[in-house]
């Protein structure tokens, strides 16, 4: 978006833009989550298969062969952890998206005003949040 438009966007327009983005995400996130679920299930299965293969090896089996089987189990385990993490991330994103949609779609004017308190303070000639923080730090240093 052009810088000029960014500078001039109003709070209501911004809320609409956020909702639009969240709604788009709401259409794509379920499929992403389903993919992640399937991936995780597959990862669990792969770990299980690898562990069974390792247990099936007789005590007389060559040391080298046992090492290879162990290494394969570790690889599958790493993949599983990553898949679980990705599924969790997709699940969180889905939850956040739902919460965000709920919040922004039911935003009350008073709630919007409270979000714009800092902007209003700056517009009426007051200090910015950064200015306030800097003053506080300076006072702390002086004290």
């Amino acid at each position, binding site marked *: *978006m052009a*810088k000029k438009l*960014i*500078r001039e*966007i109003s*709070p209501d327009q*911004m809320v609409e*833009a*956020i909702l*639009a*983005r969240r709604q*788009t*995400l709401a259409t794509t*996130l379920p499929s992403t989550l389903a993919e992640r679920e399937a991936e995780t299930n597959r990862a669990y299965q792969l770990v299980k298969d690898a562990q069974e293969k390792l247990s099936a090896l007789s005590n007389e089996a060559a040391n080298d062969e046992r090492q290879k089987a162990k290494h394969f189990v570790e690889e599958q385990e790493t993949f599983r952890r990553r898949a679980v993490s990705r599924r969790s*991330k997709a699940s*969180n*994103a889905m939850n*956040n*998206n739902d*919460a*965000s949609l709920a*919040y*922004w779609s039911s935003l009350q004017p008073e709630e919007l005003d409270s*979000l*714009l*308190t*800092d*902007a*209003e303070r*700056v*517009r009426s*000639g*007051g*200090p*910015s*949040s*950064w*200015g306030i*923080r*800097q*003053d506080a730090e300076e006072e702390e240093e002086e004290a």
Partner: protein
Amino acid sequence: MSSILPFDDLRQEPTEIVEERYNTLVTQVEALDRERKEAIELRKAHSSVIKYAVNKQERPTLAKDLPEAPSLVRAMELKSAFDALLNERDEFVSRISVRKDRIEQMLDHLYNALVLEDGRTNVTVDQEREMFSRFFEAQAMLDAYRSYDVLLHELNATRRMLLEEVKSINRDDRRWSQTVARQLTELRSLRREAGRLKAFLEQSNRTGRTTLPDLPEDLSTRLYSGDSISLEELSLMLAHGGLSALPEPKNVAFESQRRRTPQHQSRRSSPRRGRAQHERNGSS
């Protein structure tokens, strides 16, 4: 010899004229002295205002009865305006505390995170609320920078005008220094002349130059011929300047100028006796 005598030219003039010249000179000296003092005060004021304008002095030191100087008044007005704008600028910087380019970057970043589809998907509602609030604060800060740009423009313009005024005052200051130096030279010359006239008048008063009666015409003749003169005549002669003031008399045979014919006497080798002795005793 007469050229180095201090009162030669004055002796030929009546005392009243000399007195009038003296009074005129005294008036001129007083007027010039006043002008010079004013010029010195003005020069000091110029110097003080320059120091004030370039922040070497907290406030200018100006005499109360300083004559009107528009350039000084203008420079002080400009300096006050410049200081006010400078304070305004510092207050703004302290109030906003973030550079303009940094705010623009922040605005872009927040917009991307909040609105663009390729932004982060795992943003929580609380983070979104925080970013929303920051975005509009940054927008307000950027709007505030518009008035700041106007302020900076005004500040620079005032600074330029002030520097020009300082240059002009500096030029005036040099001119006033030259004026003061010239006045001093002129004043010295006038004072010297006034002092000379005053000394002459005082001397004239002491010797009673104005009431001195003329010397009797025959005084010179009588004096040079060896006649007696009275005490009053002697006093008058001294008041007129002594013997040198008397004109040389004509056709007077001076005793002192008479030439004595040398008398050649034959040396006596023997004592006087008889008639010769008698004649000598009788004559003495």
